[in-house]
């Protein structure tokens, strides 16, 4: 290395900034080095024990069936890699629906706990205490085995309006078929995203405007898709075959049990978070609002909730993360989520525990980090509008 200047104090290694950079670099090198060493010994040991390693399995034909696939998948033609994506999407589906459901239910119950109506407040307290004190696994088994299994057998299916069926093997609904259907589904998702964006982003506009625009944002993409790509050509009705119901859209009981269980369980925690947030807003704020003549509902919506949100968001994020991770209890009731499909069947067939466990943990980490990031962004927005 080149020498510094003559005066000792100015020597570069006496500069605190340089020093801290050097130390950090040393630390990074150490961490990377240890990680590399671990990886190398693991690979060596795997090789010595003759355990297959590497990621070659990713492109090998899977050979097993999965009961719910959001993307095209077949046992004979799809790979283990494809099975991974099927499992991941099934996990995300449960996580997204669970988060939305738990948020709505949790807010309602959290607010209800503070209600002046004695009965409402008591009932919601009882709900929270009951739900959050029973293990989630037990609740999932309850929904799956005690509630959904009591639905009628396939041969005595309940006939729903519009040609649907309900029985202990799931809910079967008519499905639109035709070329435009895929586009239509994406358009609907775009619509939902658009509506959320309108509601959340345009905080500066009066809320009448937002409430008026949200439905437009919601409906515009699907309606446009309908006209541009042509309406679905036909409807496929579920049909009772010799054993099972064929065709249409199938909602698995495993899926219903898992999402219901997660929503109910998490909503109790969300309710507590919401209650804590609401009570954290000083009483004076409510009184001030009342003295301005605002009704309770309006005061809650315009004064209390926006302030409470800043207290609510961080613990709420925790609940979202918990819900996503808890969705891996799916194994217990046979819902084909990422853990069941990938860290279960794929791991078992290939035997590549190290690779598969690492990938699975990585995926949950990424999902969690992304959830936190989104929530932090939202939090930052709230904080800024607050200061204006």
């Amino acid at each position, binding site marked *: 290395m080149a020498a510094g200047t003559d005066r000792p104090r100015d020597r570069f290694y006496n500069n605190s900034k340089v020093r801290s950079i050097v130390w950090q670099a040393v630390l990074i090198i150490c961490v990377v080095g240890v990680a590399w060493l671990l990886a190398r010994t*693991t690979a060596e040991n795997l090789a010595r*024990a003759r355990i*297959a390693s590497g990621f070659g399995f990713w492109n090998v034909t899977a050979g097993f069936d999965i009961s719910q696939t959001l993307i095209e998948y077949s046992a004979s033609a799809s790979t283990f890699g494809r099975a991974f994506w099927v499992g991941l999407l099934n996990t995300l589906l449960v996580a997204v629906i669970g988060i939305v459901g738990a948020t709505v239910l949790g807010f309602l119950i959290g607010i209800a706990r503070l209600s002046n109506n004695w009965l409402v407040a008591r009932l919601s307290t009882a709900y929270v205490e009951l739900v959050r004190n029973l293990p989630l696994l037990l609740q999932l088994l309850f929904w799956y*085995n005690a509630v959904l*299994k009591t639905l009628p057998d396939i041969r005595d299916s309940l006939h729903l309006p519009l040609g649907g069926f309900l029985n*202990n093997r799931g809910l079967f609904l008519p499905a639109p078929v035709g070329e435009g259907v895929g586009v239509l589904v994406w358009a609907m998702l775009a619509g939902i995203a658009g509506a959320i964006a309108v509601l959340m982003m345009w905080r500066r506009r009066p809320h009448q405007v937002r409430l008026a625009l949200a439905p437009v944002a919601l409906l515009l993409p699907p309606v446009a898709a309908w006209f541009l790509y042509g309406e679905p050509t036909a409807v496929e009705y579920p049909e009772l075959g010799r*054993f099972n119901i064929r065709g249409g859209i199938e909602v698995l009981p495993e899926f219903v049990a898992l999402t219901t269980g997660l929503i109910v369980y998490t909503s109790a925690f969300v309710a507590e978070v919401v209650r804590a947030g609401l009570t954290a807003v000083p009483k004076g704020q409510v009184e001030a609002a009342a003295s301005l003549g605002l009704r309770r509902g309006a005061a809650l919506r315009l004064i209390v909730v926006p302030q409470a949100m800043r207290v609510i968001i961080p613990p709420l994020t925790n609940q979202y993360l918990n819900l996503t991770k808890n969705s891996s209890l799916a194994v217990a009731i046979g819902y084909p989520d990422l853990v069941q499909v990938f860290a279960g069947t794929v791991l078992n067939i290939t035997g590549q525990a190290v690779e598969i466990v690492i990938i699975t943990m990585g995926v949950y980490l990424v999902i969690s980090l992304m959830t936190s990031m989104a929530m932090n962004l939202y939090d930052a927005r709230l904080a800024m509008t607050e200061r204006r």
Partner: protein
Amino acid sequence: MNIVRSLSLGIAAATALVVTASAGTLDDVKARGMLNCGSSGQLPGFSLPDAQGIWMGFDVDYCRAVAAAIFNDPTKVKFVALSSKDRFTALQSGDIDVLSRNTTWTSSRDTQLGLNFTAINYFDGQGFIVRKSIKVNSALELNDAAVCVQQGTTTELNLTDYFRANKMRVKVVAFATLDESLKAYDTGRCDSYTTDASQLYSVRLKLAKPDDHVVLPEIISKEPLGPLVRHGDDQWFDIIKWVHFALVNAEEFNITKANVDEQVKSDNPEIKRLLGTEGNYGEQLGLTKDWVVRIVKGVGNYGEVFDRNLGQGSPLKIARGINALWTKGGLQYAPPVR
């Protein structure tokens, strides 16, 4: 529970692989004074703890036979209950010394997992069970049926193959544990449950009304079952393999739990070698000369183990079939001790 278990086993396997180099399993077992044996713990006839918590069954007796050979005491075994999904990782990570748990020998399991199958102690094949009320007489009539199955089994893969080969459609509903998959079948979630035929007899007893169900005649696969050990310890591999051969040879020479003390006095050179009154064949394995005497005193011969747990002496009443000795038209055949 399950997720925690399998992930932790996976992590255990991963960390074990980071640090361990395999030592002599026999020495480890002797030092521990106990054999660690992985088994299902869910299957009457194969492995199930009784009311006192004592493990009983065909797979269980194999571990007891190993303990008898090493310690002259068939009770020196610690059993670990393992689901289909967790069994291999438990063996890889060293949690258990041997996996004796209705596990099918396949090429990929033998080559990709760092494990070795030692011998075939039960020749099995996959079958289906259905409710009598659906009036099906053959698996070929199951087109479009929903079938419950346990995850991480060869069963899961055979099922898909069979339906595809016969141009039929199937809805596979997979569960991680036997209890869940069986309960799902029992409560009408599926039209059929499928697993190894021997196990169908055993799980049928667990259904709410066993008589309402019938096992279909088709056997759709080969399921050679047997114990496994970790790759890389040849001495231990030999011991587990030869405990099986000892059981089969004992049956062939009609050496039973009741008559083994008599047979020790036999003049038949083959019996003398087997029971260690001639030669030092047990010592060559790293055991004692009287290793087979110990095994037979502990659990009996192959035929006795079979009958007591699966055959006429058990509630399952499974016929010996192809598991009869080769001298009686079956496939059970053991190399000679010499």
